[in-house]
């Protein structure tokens, strides 16, 4: 059980994405873990064959507990629950189920090309890519090919499912009993639900002229869902309370604020957006985040970690934590990695992706574990300024309020400009007002040349 954040002590396995006999590479997602704060995907740190799952579904274990045994050679695989042929053996001719595992890797050299996400999908769905006829460019196996192959796998009888899969099914209006599970012992996984949701006719997903009730009708009894949601919010509140108490007890905060002139940034954004379809439009937050990340690179005292033993360790990279309010209450602050190096468009795309996954409870381990500085943007909901509480072991929190039109005096003339109040909460053990002030000033300077962000 990896640590998914400085404040995490234990985690609960809510879904296994692999089963004994599966072949995993470093970075492949293997399990879904519920911390007190959110539900996250956890990746494998090793390459090999899953020999044994050591933690049952629903079990809560402390961080550091081994979750699964991964062996380097298939010979070490002990009694897998399904057939996992050794790589040198020919495939069993009459094997009814598609097998994943070492055979896939061994055949990979001769096998048709396959992009990593598609390969991963195939692994997750238990499809042997060596048996798929690729219809893509150069015989490449496409996502659709994998999905076709999945449809051919016989379904696994009794319906089991993880809480997340059930929640998602309710959200998408998917009938669980109609979904064939591909998880352990035929359990319906999140991927199955997403797959089923994707197969729904668009009229059902967005009933323009149809019955809107379909969208909100829960597929599971509302009472169970409500109780689960309430429990989640309660444990999230406890986790936030513990972390914020620790922050306020140990970190000597100081606070600064300044008003940023956004005329150039907003003008530029509006002219760019006017040329774009909705899907690629920018929001002011994307520009503010980029400026905050660039400035953090230039003022290293606000970007890094502090602990009592080693003192301050500045970070060479800027992993920008973004505080995301969850609609049902509470918040999480996952990271946009290397935010200072991303073009604004890319950052915007990642922001949208991160926020939607955070709200769907679908974050990845690395995103939760390592922000080097965090930004909170409460402006959308109307406040003018926000003074955040620093997330330990980080040393600074940046706040942006509402973008609003303000009277603005310059060179003896009064005009109206869009402006936003930026704040900095920083750790006095690491920096003081002079450096903190430099950081906020730098954000303002960067925003005056939005096309260079």
């Amino acid at each position: 059980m990896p640590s998914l954040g400085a404040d995490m002590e234990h985690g609960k396995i809510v879904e296994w994405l692999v089963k004994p006999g599966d072949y995993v590479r470093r970075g492949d997602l293997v399990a879904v873990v519920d911390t007190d704060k959110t539900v996250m995907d956890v990746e494998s740190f090793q390459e090999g064959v899953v020999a044994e799952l050591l933690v049952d579904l629903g079990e809560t274990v402390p961080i550091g507990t081994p979750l699964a045994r991964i062996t380097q050679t298939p010979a070490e695989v002990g009694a897998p629950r399904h057939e996992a042929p050794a790589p040198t053996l020919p495939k069993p001719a009459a094997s009814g189920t598609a097998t994943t595992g070492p055979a896939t890797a061994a055949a990979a050299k001769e096998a048709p090309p396959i992009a990593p996400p598609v390969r991963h999908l195939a692994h997750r769905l238990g499809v042997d890519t060596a048996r798929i006829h690729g219809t893509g460019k150069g015989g490449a196996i496409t996502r659709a090919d994998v999905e076709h192959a999945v449809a051919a796998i016989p379904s696994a009888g009794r319906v089991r499912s993880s809480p997340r899969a059930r929640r998602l099914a309710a959200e998408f209006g998917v009938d669980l009993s109609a979904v064939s599970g591909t998880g352990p012992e035929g359990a319906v996984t999140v991927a199955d639900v997403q797959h089923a949701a994707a197969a729904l006719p668009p009229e059902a997903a967005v009933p323009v002229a149809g019955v809107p009730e379909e969208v909100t009708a829960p597929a599971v009894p509302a009472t169970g869902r409500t109780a689960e949601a309430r429990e989640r919010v309660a444990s999230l509140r406890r986790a936030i309370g513990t972390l914020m108490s620790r922050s306020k007890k140990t970190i000597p905060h100081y606070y600064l604020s300044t008003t940023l002139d956004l005329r150039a940034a907003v003008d530029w954004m509006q002219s760019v957006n006017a040329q774009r379809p909705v899907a690629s439009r920018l929001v002011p937050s994307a520009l503010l985040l980029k400026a905050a990340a660039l400035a953090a690179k230039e003022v290293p005292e606000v970007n890094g970690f502090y602990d009592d033993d080693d003192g301050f360790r500045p970070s060479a990279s800027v992993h920008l934590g973004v505080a995301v309010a969850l609609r049902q209450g509470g918040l999480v602050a996952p990271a946009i990695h290397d935010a200072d190096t991303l073009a604004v468009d890319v950052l915007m795309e990642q922001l949208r992706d991160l926020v939607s996954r955070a709200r769907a409870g679908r974050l990845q381990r690395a995103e939760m574990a390592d922000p080097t500085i965090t930004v909170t943007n409460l402006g959308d909901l109307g406040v003018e300024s926000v003074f955040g509480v620093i997330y330990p072991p980080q040393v600074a929190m940046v706040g942006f309020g509402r973008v609003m039109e303000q009277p603005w005096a310059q060179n003896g003339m009064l005009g109206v400009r869009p402006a936003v109040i930026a704040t900095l909460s920083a750790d006095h053990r690491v920096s003081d007002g002079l450096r903190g002030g430099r950081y906020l000033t730098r954000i303002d300077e960067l925003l005056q040349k939005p096309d260079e962000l």
Partner: protein
Amino acid sequence: MNEQDARAAVQAAIGKVAPDVDLAEVDEDARLRQDLELDSLDFLRLVETIDTATGVDIPERDYPAVSTVKGLIGYLAAHG
């Protein structure tokens, strides 16, 4: 698009972007940001969802006109 279709499209889109909102209890005077608590990313997704479903692309300069549920329905009815 008539008003009934516009209303259905708006409700479907809100249901998708903010599944926790109880549409039966939403007053049509409700403001999307302050009352339904949609942030700028939610709002963008709402505009995108409506564009995909109805083909009505709401340009940024018209955002003030669609800041309430009623405003959005009216906009779709007029432009769809």
